[in-house]
């Protein structure tokens, strides 16, 4: 049985097990799927009760039977551990905020709100998923599951067909794997992201050891030829070219195949001797430009040596499987779902609905008010009952921010941060609002912020800084505040920006900000190093000019260029 695909765990569950094959046959090719609005589920008075269960890193709100919920949670827990066998946690995204999942039972027949359907029908939108016929004869399909991400958290829903789910084999979807890697800071290079996704996709996680099926090289025909003839000619991109490419170029199939081949080669062998080198290399490639020297330091091989080994390995890779021993997986603590509280329902479901707004906005802008209204309704139900949990207030504040209601968001965000919420984006948004306010009435001469104003803005940023994931906007705002404040900070303070540059090494604006601040404060070597880095990264001519001008100013130790 082929495994099902979970996006973060949230998966394509439309038709599990027995029904799945037929569904797959009937379904259009993936590239023909039409994105559809997610479910907008109104609270049903007579619906099944919400249940709550929690494991490290995941909160689940479920309207399924406990057995189904536990099966899902256990599978997710197992898959996360197996993922860690292939991908060290250091190379996965870290989040201080647990992921959340909302489970619906297919039997409870959750539906898209009738007015949404009506709107869609009016606009003649197509639909997919579970096909139905409207009274006007227009087909649509409700979205069975969806993973939605904010900059500091993910939330997902899915609808489970409980009858067949207990025996279902689940797998993390390529989309989730891609997200788990890409959202790590610093973000790994594209060749690693795509190579790993393909590698993972070839894995059978139901077997012990994990078994990766033979590689398919470039095309089925090429793979077949390589299987038949070990001398069959093969072409690989020179590694210097491959590692420096931002993504697949003209020969996308080769680039993608080589990405997977490289990872597989690096993970191959008894006791996987090259694996530590691989992880070290990926970490360095995420943070700095890849050179042959870096590669050699990690693998002890030059580019050509490695490429030759990969070329030789290809003949084996198309024929053989790669086995990875997971070792003993940690046992899942005994879980007992319990009734969810109003707060949990509001916070988790409300956050999901908040994120749906962002998903709907570019696709179905006419539906945004309805989704916003639904999210507010869910969130405020608990708030109105007197719940003042910082996490709930943070979500409400973010919801208002997403809706463009900064004024309405402020009090919730202030309360949440005051309450010590672990929600980096909420802290950032509060800082942003405070900064906007301070800019309207700067206390210091020259339109600058006073130390008190700057501190007011920076205080929630420091909070956010301590909570993963690292947010680019947090570093950018910090730099901006410093740039427009009376300078009262030290090189030690600026180390925070060094960290930002390390997390976002390819972000030229941030590098420029950091260079400018270092230059202004007279930290010449640090500024020069950042300029050098920026010139490598900022290929845009405008940035090149700005960096060059900054270098000129730095050389003269004159006033640096205009504030960024």
């Amino acid at each position, binding site marked *: 049985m082929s495994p099902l695909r979970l996006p973060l765990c949230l998966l394509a569950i439309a038709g599990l097990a027995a029904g799945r094959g037929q569904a797959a046959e009937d379904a259009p090719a993936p590239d023909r799927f039409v994105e559809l609005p997610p479910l907008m589920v109104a609270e049903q008075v007579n619906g099944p009760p919400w249940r709550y269960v929690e494991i490290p890193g995941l909160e689940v709100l479920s309207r399924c039977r406990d057995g189904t919920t536990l099966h899902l949670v256990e599978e997710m827990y197992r898959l996360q551990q197996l993922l860690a066998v292939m991908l060290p946690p250091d190379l996965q995204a870290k989040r201080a905020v647990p992921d959340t999942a909302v489970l619906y039972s297919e039997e409870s027949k959750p539906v898209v709100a009738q007015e949404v359907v009506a709107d869609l029908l009016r606009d003649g939108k197509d639909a997919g998923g579970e096909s139905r016929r409207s009274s006007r004869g227009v087909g649509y399909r409700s979205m069975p599951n969806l993973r939605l991400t904010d900059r500091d958290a993910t939330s997902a829903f899915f609808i489970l067909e409980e009858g067949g789910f207990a025996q279902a084999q689940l797998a993390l979807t390529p989309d989730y794997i891609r997200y788990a890697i890409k959202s790590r800071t610093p973000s790994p290079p594209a060749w690693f992201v795509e190579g790993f996704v393909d590698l993972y996709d070839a894995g059978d996680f139901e077997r012990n050891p994990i078994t990766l099926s033979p590689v398919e090289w470039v095309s089925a025909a090429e793979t077949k030829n390589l299987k038949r*003839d070990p001398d*069959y*000619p*093969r072409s690989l991109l*020179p590694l210097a070219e491959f590692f420096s490419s931002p993504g697949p170029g003209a020969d996308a199939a080769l680039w993608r195949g080589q990405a997977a081949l490289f990872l597989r080669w690096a993970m191959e062998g008894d006791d996987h001797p090259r694996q530590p080198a691989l992880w070290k290399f990926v970490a360095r490639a995420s943070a700095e430009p890849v050179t042959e020297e870096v590669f050699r330091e990690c693998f002890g091989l030059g580019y050509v040596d490695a490429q030759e*080994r990969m070329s*030789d390995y290809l003949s084996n890779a198309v024929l053989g499987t790669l086995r990875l021993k997971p070792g003993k997986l940690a046992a899942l603590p005994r879980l007992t779902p319990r009734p969810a509280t109003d707060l949990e329902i509001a916070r988790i479901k409300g956050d999901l609905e908040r994120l749906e707004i962002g998903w709907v906005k570019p696709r179905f802008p006419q539906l945004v008010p309805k989704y916003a209204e639904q999210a507010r309704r869910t969130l405020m139900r608990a708030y109105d009952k007197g719940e003042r949990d910082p996490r709930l207030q943070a979500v409400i504040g973010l919801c208002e921010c997403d809706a463009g209601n900064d004024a309405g968001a402020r009090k919730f965000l202030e309360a949440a941060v005051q309450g010590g919420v672990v929600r980096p984006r909420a802290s950032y948004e509060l800082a942003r609002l405070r900064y906007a306010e301070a800019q309207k009435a700067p206390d210091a001469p020259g339109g600058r912020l006073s130390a008190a104003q700057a501190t007011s803005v920076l205080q929630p940023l420091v909070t956010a800084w301590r909570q993963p994931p690292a947010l680019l906007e947090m570093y950018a705002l910090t730099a901006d505040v410093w740039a427009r404040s009376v300078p009262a900070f030290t090189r030690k303070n600026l180390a925070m920006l060094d960290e930002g540059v390390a997390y976002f090494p390819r972000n030229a604006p941030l590098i420029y900000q950091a260079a400018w601040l270092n230059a202004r404060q007279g930290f010449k070597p640090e500024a020069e190093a950042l300029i050098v880095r920026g010139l490598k990264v900022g290929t845009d001519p405008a940035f090149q000019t700005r960096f060059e001008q900054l270098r000129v100013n730095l050389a003269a130790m004159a006033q640096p260029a205009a504030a960024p």
Partner: protein
Amino acid sequence: MNSHPRFSGRTLLPLLLPACLGWLASPAHAAAPTSRDLAAWLQPDRTQQATLAPDGHHLAYTVHEEELTMIVIIDVDDPTKKAVLPVGRDVVIRDSRDHEKSPMRVPFFRWVGPGRLVFAAEMPSLDEVDVRRVHEPANVTVVYAVDADGRHLMKLADEENLVLLFPLPDGSTERLPRQPRVIDLAADVQDSILVEAVRPALGSGSADPSLYGRVATGLFRINVRTGQRQVLHEQDVNGRLLYDRNGQARIEIWDPIDRAGQSFISLPSPGRRASKELDKLFGDAVTPANYLGTRTFPVGFDYDPDILYLASNAGRDTYGLYALDLRTAKRTALAVEHPAFDLAGFETSGSLPALVFDQKQRRLVGVRVAGLEPAAQWLDPELAGLQATLDGKFPGRSVQLIDWDDSRTRFLVFASSVGDPGRYYLYHRAENRLVQIVRRAPAVDPDQTNAATTFAFDTPEGVHLTGYLTVPKTPLKTQPPLLVWCHDGPWDRDAPGFNHDAQMFAAMGFFVLQVNYRGSAGFGTRFREALRESLDGIPVADIRAAITWVEARYNVDRKRVALLGQGFGGYLALRALQLYPDDFRCAVAINAPTDLEQWSRKPESWREAIDRGEVANSTMKQTQDFMINFGPGQSGPLAQRGLLVPSFAEQGMGALDAAPSTNGDPDPVSGTQPDAAGTAAAPATAGGRGGPPPPPFPPEYVNFASELRRWYFGHDKARLAALSPAQHPELFTKPVLLLQDPYDAGGEAGVSSALRSALSKAGNPPEYLEISGEFTRGLPKARLQAWTKVQEFMMISLYDFDVKIGIPKVQK
């Protein structure tokens, strides 16, 4: 009596070596390799040649596996279309001692036109040949052509269809088979190749001095599609012929079979006169005295048959390559030179592979340079640019452009290094894409390969030394021992490229150091001639300097340095051990001369009275004058003056003028018509026509290498005795292993045994292993047997296993 008698470690070696090696192999280090491990390093390369068709659509390469040699042809655009032609199985050469099979060779492998591949298959002889005496078997060669799809395989030439028909007095004819040798593609006739057929001329073995040593040489032009043969030339010569690209014999090269040495005689050809100027340029003879000095010799013809390429070191330190316009007897502007490396050896091979021609454009496009790694100097800017592009794609590798198609869109490339046997790629220039075609030695596991590198440094005395260092990947000790491998010589060098033997010794746990000591060839005259100052002192000083250099950079065990050498290198190994017993722990000498006085003690012939120096000086003077005074000034190679050795008298011939030939007649021999079978009739006289007069004195066959050696080493018996290891057995205080082929072609067997006898008499018998011709021919089993013996010897000598039964331990 001791109830626990002590046993010599050597006596018990076969039993205890595994235990000893196991002791050495701490957890941090690898176990010593087994014979099977070592054998893997000695396997012959699977693919030795590859060639790209001029239309770029097909590519062929040789494969040797499981005792079978094959040719593989692939369609470049659809590699699933692949033809595999079995060519021949490995065979045991008759009378070989060890009955080890020898693989066949493919000495010629080229496309002739877009769809026709021509190759020569050279099989070790099965004839009754005493290979113990001739050392190299008389091989049998067959030339084939085959279509790109593997069909229409056709035998173009073999010993039978190049037969020489000799009329006998009774009116019958005797068929005298001749082996074919493919010279090149015929430049003037499409789809044709030039094949030379050679055999000893009738009477060449007689006492008649005018016939002695003459060779019946024929040149055939063969159509590779029809098989039709045409005789272009038949002549009995005293040496070899140098042909132009149309198949006209242009220069006769007399081998130095007698004391007159080697001469070059310009021959007339249709429409062209013989060039006396050329004869003067090349001098009367190559003698031992001038062989290593200033010389100019021909290396091949251009597509323009009036352009002759020359190698010369006249007025400079290293050999450069130049061209002579025979119409004007002046040099052209071409001057390809390298400041550090000779672009030609001393030998007049007649077709220098260093010259690279573009078949389509019919011109010289580059010169290959045997530096520390293979390289090329491209005369064609397009190829120079492409070389730079490809070098950038293979950092750390030497990239050789092997072939390219007529449109120059596809290039066959060989990328290798001293630590990598290499692989062939096809470069698609338009797509900037490299496709790996085949590996040269897939049996060599890159993950097991020991890192190897070239090195170059200046000694404190200012001597620039180069060489190769192979670093053990899995040393047996934290501080691995150092093995110094001395190459044969003195006029030889360590060859560029992957070295299977060095890899094998590194796999045993040694650092392997190869030094191009002074006296080595290929690095210019001064470097080569520096040896004469001290035959042993100079190279041994260089070896010690290299050891010091390595020691400063690598974690070698300076207390455990071993020496190994073959031929003159073996002599150096022995001398180093004698002179610096505290520096070295042992020495292995393979077919090494151990008594120089005895080595040089050959009776002087009646021509001893000839003043060699006079001949040599005359030759060098005239070639130098020519190279300096002729041709455009800017092309002169002559920035350097004042060669160290040998000096010569100021009695040059002066500049050569374009004087008319004394023989302006067309060469009647070249007009010889083939008979119906394409065979050739023997010349009416054994001397042939158009050639030089026979030597005026009864010849005496001599080994030119021996003569050269005798001249070089001199006749001072006392000096030679002082330099001879066998004369001073008392100086050996460290172990010695002698490996000796009793039938070694170099003739050193006797002088090697001199040391064995001397050491035995002195009560210090050396270790000894008799090796066979299979070892010299590089056959893997024979080499493995010898190297296993060396390994045992080294382990005992370096680690001084002093063993009680069952209790191995290492003594410092």
